[in-house]
């Protein structure tokens, strides 16, 4: 168990250092910071002076080491386009993206699991077929198109819901939250739904497949033979056993949600990190791009790590296998 955790931790560190290296290469080879800071008509002396001040005359690996030290402290310099500190820009945008991803994940679970259970229990019924067809569409429709369709129907034609921005937010310390106002929730519905649909169809199909698998096992047959009610069998025995893989996939997808938020945030002009990143890409704002890359990598690595550990905790078979292996 200890060796397992240690190995995963080491892997995570290797991934983070290699992502850091890529970010460092971005800084090194894309756009010369000295020329950007001094402008075209700087004297050679000025350039040499600034290079020394910035530590750019030092060997490659020394520079990389300094970069890593700064990155660990969340220090990525100034945004080329906005002139503000990158860490502050990202910090301002983080709550919006985080809340959006959280609500989307909750939506996907709350709708996806019941749909999957229904499709498995009433296999072949009309509604199940509808669910399956809709889920195929959900996988084939690109995220931005789903967003546009939702805006067209609910904002333009029906006029029920707002289609851009976060609405009214409440500040709690440095965290600005849209979850405490009605206006914030109204603004949340369409983007969260857009972001959730892909995960929702995935969870639904997964729950259905797992449920069908479990319903065929002997202990379900035995439970039926004991005369337990359908309700107890389906929800007490079957559903409980399908949820382990569902939890794993959902956990892993949470990172995907934050990344896919780039598209959703662009469609709905949601002021999150994704929108910041897209603007950075269009304006070639290297520090923001590098910082976002490192942050996303960190989120992914942490989630992967937690899911791996949870898996061992939740699934007793893995623990037994590990113990038997030693």
């Amino acid at each position, binding site marked *: 168990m200890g060796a397992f955790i240690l190995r995963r931790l080491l892997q995570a560190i290797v*991934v983070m250092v*290699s*992502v850091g290296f890529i970010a460092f290469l*971005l800084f090194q*080879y*894309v*756009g010369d910071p000295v020329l950007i800071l001094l402008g075209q008509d700087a004297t050679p002396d000025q350039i040499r002076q600034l290079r020394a001040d910035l530590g750019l005359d030092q060997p490659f690996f020394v520079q990389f080491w300094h970069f890593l030290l700064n990155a660990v402290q969340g220090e990525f310099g100034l945004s080329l386009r906005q002139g503000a500190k990158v860490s502050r820009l990202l910090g301002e945008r983080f709550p919006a993206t985080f809340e959006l991803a959280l609500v989307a994940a909750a939506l996907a679970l709350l709708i996806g699991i019941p749909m999957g259970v229904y499709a498995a229990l009433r296999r072949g019924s009309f509604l199940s077929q509808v669910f399956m067809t809709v889920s195929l*569409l959900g*996988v*084939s*429709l*690109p*995220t*931005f*198109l789903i967003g*546009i*369709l939702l*805006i*067209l129907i609910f*904002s*333009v034609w029906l006029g029920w819901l707002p289609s851009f921005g976060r609405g009214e937010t409440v500040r709690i310390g440095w965290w600005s939250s849209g979850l405490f106002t009605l206006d914030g929730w109204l603004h949340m519905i369409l983007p969260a739904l857009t972001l959730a649909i892909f995960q929702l169809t995935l969870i639904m199909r997964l729950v259905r497949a797992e449920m069908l698998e479990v319903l065929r096992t002997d202990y379900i047959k035995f439970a039926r033979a004991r005369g337990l009610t359908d309700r107890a069998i389906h929800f007490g025995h079957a559903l409980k056993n399908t949820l382990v893989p569902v939890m794993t996939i959902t956990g892993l997808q949470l*990172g*995907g949600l934050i*990344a*896919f938020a*780039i*598209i959703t945030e*662009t*469609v709905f002009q949601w002021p999150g990190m994704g929108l910041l*990143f*897209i603007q*950075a*890409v*269009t304006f*070639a704002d*290297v520090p923001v*791009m590098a910082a976002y*890359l490192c942050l*996303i*990598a960190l989120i*992914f*690595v942490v989630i*992967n790590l937690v899911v791996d550990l949870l898996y061992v905790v939740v699934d007793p078979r893995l623990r037994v296998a590990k113990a038997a292996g030693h």
Partner: protein
Amino acid sequence: MSNALARWWDSDVAYSFRSSPTAIVAALVGLVCVFCAVFAPWVAPHNPLDLTTLELSDARLPPFWMEGGSSKYWLGTDDQGRDILSALMYGARISLVVGLASVLLSVLVGVGLGLIAGFRGGWVDGFLMRVCDVMLSFPAILIALLVAGVARAKFPDAGTSVAFGVLIIAIALTGWVQYARTVRGSTMVERGKEYVQAARVTGVAPWRIMLKHVLPNVMGPVMVLATIQVATAIITEATLSFLGVGVPPTSPSLGTLIRVGNDYLFSGEWWITIFPGVMLVLIALSVNLLGDWLRDALNPRLR
């Protein structure tokens, strides 16, 4: 020739195609889309790229069945009086070219690296698989965006051909991992088989064994994967173009058309953005369904 055709008609794959209505419909829809795209200059009623034929008085006309629509423009016109139907035929053309080229590139890279990793094993294999792990732990769209962003910073005023090249490379970079892993797995199985050993014993050069003996035997799953990846690549291209980092605006793809039309959603001109979207979904859905069918047809265990 007719003999070969008859043999194909009797084959398992052809039979499974004939007995699958989904596959037939998907193939028909896909063929119509591809036909319109390939022959756009001859099929399309107008030339959307020729600015001299545009008339501003025809701008923002709705489709012909709505009030104010004209039979001259079946699916309506955009803000510059461009015929939507023609624009989406030309747009599908660019989407298809970028999609196919990037899949071809990622197949070449992925299959090549997978063959080497599976055949050589050792540290080459170990290194390559770690790279794959890192690549797979990031969403494809993020990698593509990053490549596009770096290229933008590096070549701020690049021409059209450079922009296309960057886009194709960016999408191909997100796809090669899957081929590399698949091919590596099946190459490791094939490597131990007798025909490979026989070839080795008779002194055939390793690269020749890889290309002439192993490669044909590992291509089956690659074909299925490549079919489905064409749909993914087209959607990725559309997404990048929608986000504004895709093809240059002078040669609009379906994604660019959707992006442009998105600005007119609130003034009621939904057709500018919805029709390119429908075209995109039709292409992606038909390719996906064909890929699913091909996977089932080539895998005898599922029958």
